[in-house]
Each structure stands twice: as structure tokens, then as C-alpha cells.
């Protein structure tokens, strides 16, 4: 590999040298204004510029769901979105789930059901699930499978994840009256 820059596995952002664009958006409830490289992905913006390292990059091509965030109420893969496309957007990342240092019900259930091992896929699963339960507090198994189909986990297996989602939905309905 003579020219590492040509390799699609390179995941860090390479500055384009193009004039920066002023971007304003809301991330986890915080209003943010930054100048960004027009070539930067939203994923790299969250990680490199905002130092929100919860959102992960695995495939970088929209295939695995590790970089899933919620943008304007929808679960999306941030690796294939340009940061500049998020102008005016409301974004929630995994860091936005806990409140005042207390884990959310959804996070608690992922732990109690052993729905993670290495945890690399987990922020993505959590955000896909969060968007689902926000729109549909009582999803069927088929609906859960449909929405989580774009999230890959290579170590835990999907049964504990399904269990965690079901239990979280149930608890949220009971405890938060959703």
C-alpha cells in the first residue's frame, strides 16, 4: 500500500483545504456553532470536533449501523452524511441518553440482559432503538427486527439485544407512561 490515502480503510478525516462552512445545530440539547470542512462527515464532526466518542465508525459505508445517531427524530448512519448537511438539525447521540449521570431505562436493560460484549455496536443499537421507541412505544418483534436489521453485532448475538429492547419498551411504558 504505497498510497495509504487511497485505501478505503483510512477512517480519519483528511482536511480538504476548501473554505470552511459555518454550521449551527443542536447536539444533545446543546446549541453548537462551528466552522467545518465541507468534506467532513457528520460522524467525524461528532467525534473529532465535538469529542463525542460514543458514536463509532466501523464500515464507514452505511452497512453496519455502528455510527447510528438520531437526526431530526430519525435513526440515520452518520458516516455517510456530510457534517454540512446537518445545518439546523437536532441531533441525539448515545451521550444524550443518560440524564444527570443516570443511565436511561434502555441502557439499563442492555446491561441487565447482557446485550453487549465488546460494546462497539452498542451505541448504534441504542440509537436505533431509541428512535423506534420514540415513534412506537409498543413495537412488535417484527417491527424491532426491521428497525435493527441495519445494525450488526459480531459478538453478542441478537437474542439478548431483542430481549433488552422488549424489556426496555415494557419498562418505559410502565414507568414513564409512554
Amino acid at each position, binding site marked *: 500500500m504505497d498510497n495509504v490515502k487511497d485505501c478505503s480503510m483510512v477512517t480519519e478525516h483528511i482536511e480538504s483545504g476548501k473554505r470552511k462552512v459555518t454550521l449551527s445545530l443542536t447536539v444533545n440539547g446543546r446549541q453548537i456553532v462551528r466552522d467545518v470542512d*465541507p468534506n467532513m*462527515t457528520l460522524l467525524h464532526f461528532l467525534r473529532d470536533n465535538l469529542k463525542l466518542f460514543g458514536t463509532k465508525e466501523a464500515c464507514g*459505508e452505511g452497512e453496519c449501523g455502528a455510527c447510528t445517531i438520531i437526526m431530526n427524530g430519525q*435513526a*440515520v448512519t452518520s458516516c*455517510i452524511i456530510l457534517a454540512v448537511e446537518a445545518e439546523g438539525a437536532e441531533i441525539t447521540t448515545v451521550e444524550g441518553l443518560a440524564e444527570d449521570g443516570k443511565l436511561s431505562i434502555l441502557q439499563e436493560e442492555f446491561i441487565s440482559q447482557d446485550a453487549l460484549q465488546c460494546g462497539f455496536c452498542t451505541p448504534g443499537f441504542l440509537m436505533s432503538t431509541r428512535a423506534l421507541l420514540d415513534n412506537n412505544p409498543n413495537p412488535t418483534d417484527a417491527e424491532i427486527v426491521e428497525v435493527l436489521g441495519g445494525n450488526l453485532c459480531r459478538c453478542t448475538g441478537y437474542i439478548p439485544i431483542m430481549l433488552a429492547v422488549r424489556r426496555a419498551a415494557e419498562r418505559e411504558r410502565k414507568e414513564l407512561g409512554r
Partner: protein
Amino acid sequence: MISRFTYFKPHNLNEAVQYLEKKEKSFVLAGGTDLMILLRRNLINAEHIVDIKALPETTAFEFIEGAGLTIGASVVVNTVVDSEVVKAKYPALNEAAASLASYQLRNRATVVGNICNASPGADLPPALLVYDAVVNIAGPQGMRQVPLHEFFTGVKRTVLQRGELVVSVQMPEPGEGDKSIYLRQARLRGHDLATVGVASRIKPDGKVAIGICAVAPTPKRLFALEDMINERGLSQETIEWAAEEIREHIRPITDVRSSAQYRLQMASVLLKRGLLALIGKEA
């Protein structure tokens, strides 16, 4: 990202068209689910990215009684999946849309993007083709309309000229009693590009329409086969005959996803299954 590009987000169509015409190596960005991958893999050399999502014409998603359905170029696939009107009036389109990629991608990927990429195996074109979809194109000379079956010119090629962009795709309203179905074969049950996809439609007057992908350089309407079926009159026998005859109307290739032979076989099976389901018979 190896390309180094500027980002431009026009707010009116003229501005967009002028920019696209003037600037070489400019690419239209809507959902970005394909474009971003091309950029990342360094498969295109982009100097300008034109984000069309702020153009009011591209955000239209409306059904007008008598006139039909318009889907703007910024409308994402999940909007179509969730639409009650699409479920009721254009079931094959609903099924094709629901079969596309993963949920997160469908939240970004656009219907028009699936057309404009002109991938031979794209799922939405077969369904759009059976509804006689028309592509609305804006360009330096103004607007023009191209029937979808004339839009594709080859693998990843379309009639679009420099400075042109697709604003929307529209389909007439199907009459009362119209039926349609989209069936696809893939290598696995999860997300995979189609090995073959077949949209079948029976119109209220009993005439059929067939759209197919991944068996030719472009998605196709099988007009000649339709005529032959319509001449014979729709029946179980005709369907069984058509399932054999379809082999003469497609030219699949062998690639990583399938052999040509398997594609021929699956096209036959999916057409038969689809049409039989539409006339209420099991395959």
C-alpha cells in the same frame, strides 16, 4: 474522502441548474447513500457537491385524486414505505421500497436517487415502470419529461445531460381494482441487492405490465411480453406460458450475485408467482 469539493445548497431551481451547468465535476447530492460511498472509495472525482434538499420542488410528496402521485427528489424511501396512499394504490412500489437496504439507509436514501444511479439491479425502477412513471427533469432549457422506460441508457447511465437534474418522478393514478406486486430474490434474507426483481401489475381492464431488474444493463419494462400475454388473455395457462416465454425477453449476465442461468430461472419463477398471486392462485 479523497475528492476535495465545495458544498453548495441552492434554494431555487434556476440557481441549481446554472451552477451544475457552469461547474465541471459537480455532483448532485440528495440522500447521499450512494454518492458518499463513491466519494469515500475515490471512485469519482468531485469538485462541487450540490445539495438539492432545499429546493422546494424536490420536497413534494403528494397524491392528487385523478392526477396521481408525485415524489420529489428529496423524498426518502421510508416516506414511501409509510405512506397509506402508496400501500393502497401502488402496492408494488410499497413492497419494492420496503425491500430496499436497511431502515437507517431508507431514512436517507431517496426514491429519485435510486432511479438516477441507474443501477441495473435497483429495486424501485421495476415498480415505478409498471405504473408508467415519468421523470421530471430541470435543465438549462427548462423542464422536460421523460418516461422512465426511456430514462436509462446503460449501466449507470441515463439521459441526463450536463446541467440537468431530476426534480421528481410522477405516476398516474391506477383505476379501481388495479393490482400489483413486487417480488425479489436475493442471496440471503437480510439486506442484499436483488439477484432478480420482478414487478407485476394487472390493470382494471385485465391488461398486465411487467417491470424487471438485474437481468439487463438497465431495469426494463417488458412491453413485448406484455403484448403477447394481453393477446392471449390472462389465465393460469397464459401465466405458465409467460413464465417460460420471459426467458426470451431478458439477457442476464453472470456476476458475483448469481449465474445468468439462475437469473433466468428466478425471473420465470417470480413472474409466475407474482401473476398467480394477483389472480388469487397459489404458485
